[in-house]
């Protein structure tokens, strides 16, 4: 499968509420269906995640203006994330703006969105559900 950008809408408890994919590795074009899903699921929506399968662990200028538009339409700040084969960054709403963080403990759905994007899912997860180390008995 050729690399392609994929978008997940994430709800509480890291539930994947909805997804769609592009045919391009560098763009996820505007789609009324994506907006319709955001609006329909807005009460449960926590985060919008998308991939940059060719790399580029940062929000693009297109991402920035889309996030501005979405937050203004919804009347609240969402959480946003970008996932690449190398890592994950997340934009977290704060009282006076937001902050961007690198994510070390990836949510369970990250390998899934990477596979859907046509790239290797990366190393094993380090989440509370699959600890990297365990106590010796």
């Amino acid at each position: 499968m050729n690399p392609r950008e994929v978008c997940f809408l994430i709800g509480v408890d890291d539930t994947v509420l909805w997804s769609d994919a592009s045919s391009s590795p560098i763009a996820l074009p505007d789609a009324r269906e994506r907006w319709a899903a955001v609006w329909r699921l807005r009460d449960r929506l926590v985060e919008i995640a998308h991939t940059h399968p060719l790399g580029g662990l940062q929000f693009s200028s297109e991402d920035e203006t889309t996030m501005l538009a979405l937050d203004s339409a919804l009347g609240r700040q969402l959480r946003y994330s970008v996932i690449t084969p190398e890592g994950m960054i997340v934009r977290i709403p704060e009282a006076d703006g937001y902050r961007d963080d690198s994510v070390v403990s990836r949510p369970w759905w990250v390998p899934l969105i990477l596979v859907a994007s046509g790239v290797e899912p990366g190393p094993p997860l380090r989440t509370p559900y699959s600890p990297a180390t365990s106590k010796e008995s």
Partner: protein
Amino acid sequence: MAILNITYDGMSVDYPRKINDGLADLDIRRIAVEVVRSGEVPGLHIAGLAERAFDHYVVDRLRTPQGELRMYLRPKVPFGEPAGDEAFRCVS
């Protein structure tokens, strides 16, 4: 003529007066700022709405089963990776 629906600040509201269905997106965005500022959209009155509040919004034009044209002013939702920035500028 068409009905204009505006989504902003957590609300999705129809402007009660029909507008010209031949208007360009730029004009619709400008009209939306004016009618939201003036309180002509029920439940969506923001006197201090920024001039460029809808700059990153697009207009969907859909026809109802009854043949009525509805125009939806809603946020754009594309994403793209930094390497694609130049490509976006070329096609916009």
